[in-house]
């Protein structure tokens, strides 16, 4: 049946040669019932030709040119497929490294900073904080050149043997880090003895509770326990000031106060 239909369809659609068409016409004369099928295909053919009416293509050469330029540029902007497999592992490695840095820096306590004049022992050691001896309590008017950045000091301590009047910086923490200032920050203490100022740079994570940074020769500073280290005076000793950094909740202004006397310490110029 399908083979027979195909012949009639080919005839109706004009696909047959003249000889084949003559044969089909002869068969149709013998089998008039096939005429209906031929009419169906002819009708179909006529309807299909009506689908040829299509609107005009308005795609302009300019749009075509833009599309090709965009595609070409897009292809050039794509990363090389040969190196594409590196993207995933590289991103994972960066994330892992970031997590490691964050976790390794997270120590539980910020936030009290003690600066005191050097003891005789400390004065002989190279330190990262050099403050004139005439300055008491908070180092006063320390020149910017010697203003220490503890991060750098830990790895490359600045030694100033000519200054026997160095001070040690003692840091107590009660949280993950102390961030008194991100750059050289003038520090002023107002007390009975008048205003005093120093440059203080502490934007680094600090070691945990009640520790101090002690010079270790050429290798930098190491944290020490204030309570156990006999070379360090206790907070009650004269000449040691403990300050507590604070942030004003309303204005965001940073300030500090002495722990013992509760006197305010003003940050800023």
């Amino acid at each position, binding site marked *: 049946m399908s083979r027979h239909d195909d012949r009639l369809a080919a005839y109706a659609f004009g696909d047959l040669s003249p000889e084949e068409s003559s044969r089909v016409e002869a068969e149709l004369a013998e089998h008039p019932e096939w005429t209906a099928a031929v009419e*169906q295909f002819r009708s179909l053919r006529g*309807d299909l030709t*009506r689908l040829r009416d299509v*609107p005009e293509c*308005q795609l302009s050469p300019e749009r*075509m040119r833009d599309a*090709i*330029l965009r595609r070409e540029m897009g292809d050039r902007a794509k990363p090389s497929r040969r190196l594409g497999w590196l993207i995933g592992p590289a991103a994972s490695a960066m994330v892992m490294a970031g997590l490691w840095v964050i976790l390794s820096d997270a120590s539980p306590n910020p936030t009290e900073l003690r600066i005191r004049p050097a003891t005789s022992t400390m004065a002989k050691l190279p330190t990262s904080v050099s403050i004139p001896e005439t300055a008491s309590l908070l180092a006063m008017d320390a020149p910017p050149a010697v203003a220490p950045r503890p991060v750098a000091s830990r790895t490359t301590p600045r030694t100033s043997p000519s200054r026997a009047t160095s001070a040690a910086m003692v840091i107590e923490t009660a949280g993950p880090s102390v961030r008194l200032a991100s750059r050289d920050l003038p520090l002023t203490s107002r007390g009975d003895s008048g205003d005093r100022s120093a440059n203080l740079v502490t934007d680094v994570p600090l070691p945990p509770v009640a520790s101090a940074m002690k010079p270790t020769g050429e290798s930098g500073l190491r944290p020490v326990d204030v309570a156990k280290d006999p070379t360090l005076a206790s907070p009650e000793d004269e000449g040691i000031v403990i300050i507590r950094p604070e942030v004003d909740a309303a204005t965001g202004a940073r300030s500090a106060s002495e722990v013992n006397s509760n006197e305010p310490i003003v940050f800023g110029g």
Partner: protein
Amino acid sequence: MDLAMSLSGQLIERPIEGDSDELLVSRAREGDYQAFETLFVRHRTLVFRFVYQMCPRRDDAEDMVQEVFVRAYQNLHRYRDEAKFTTWLLRIATNLGTDRARMSHRRQALEQQEAGSGLAWMTIGEHDDPIANLESERRVLALRRAMEALPIHHRNVIILRDIEEREYTDIAEMLNCTIGGAKLRVLRARRALRDRMIPFMEDQR
């Protein structure tokens, strides 16, 4: 010598309208974009007619034409001169249309097209008699629906052979089959279309 500028800014000999497709392709391969543009202007209507039958919305059809020519431009180095350039273009269009037919966005497009053509039935027609016009449009609509419902391989060969009247040799090249195979596919597709239209035809009687 008439000179033109390539996409890369290089001066090249301007293509002439009468140049053969093969010559223009050859120049386009060497970086002469104007030669490719001449090919585009020459054959965009052919491609548009073909793709419009697959997705009868002008916007979509023009997007497809654009995509066909972008692909052609990017693959000019793969074109072999044994086949006609138009055959190669329609082959790209066939593949693209087949890919798109597999996606499911077509139903919405067809509904929109139907909604848009509803008004046209009442206002535009071949016959003076509005009822005859309506009847005629209804037949075309039914045929379009039947075409849409056909498998894409049937639809492609009917468009190529019975609407665009391509030769069997071209169809065989596009479908990558023998001429006999192309004829067989066309016959099967016609039968499938006729079977879908029979209810409508009998209803007409």
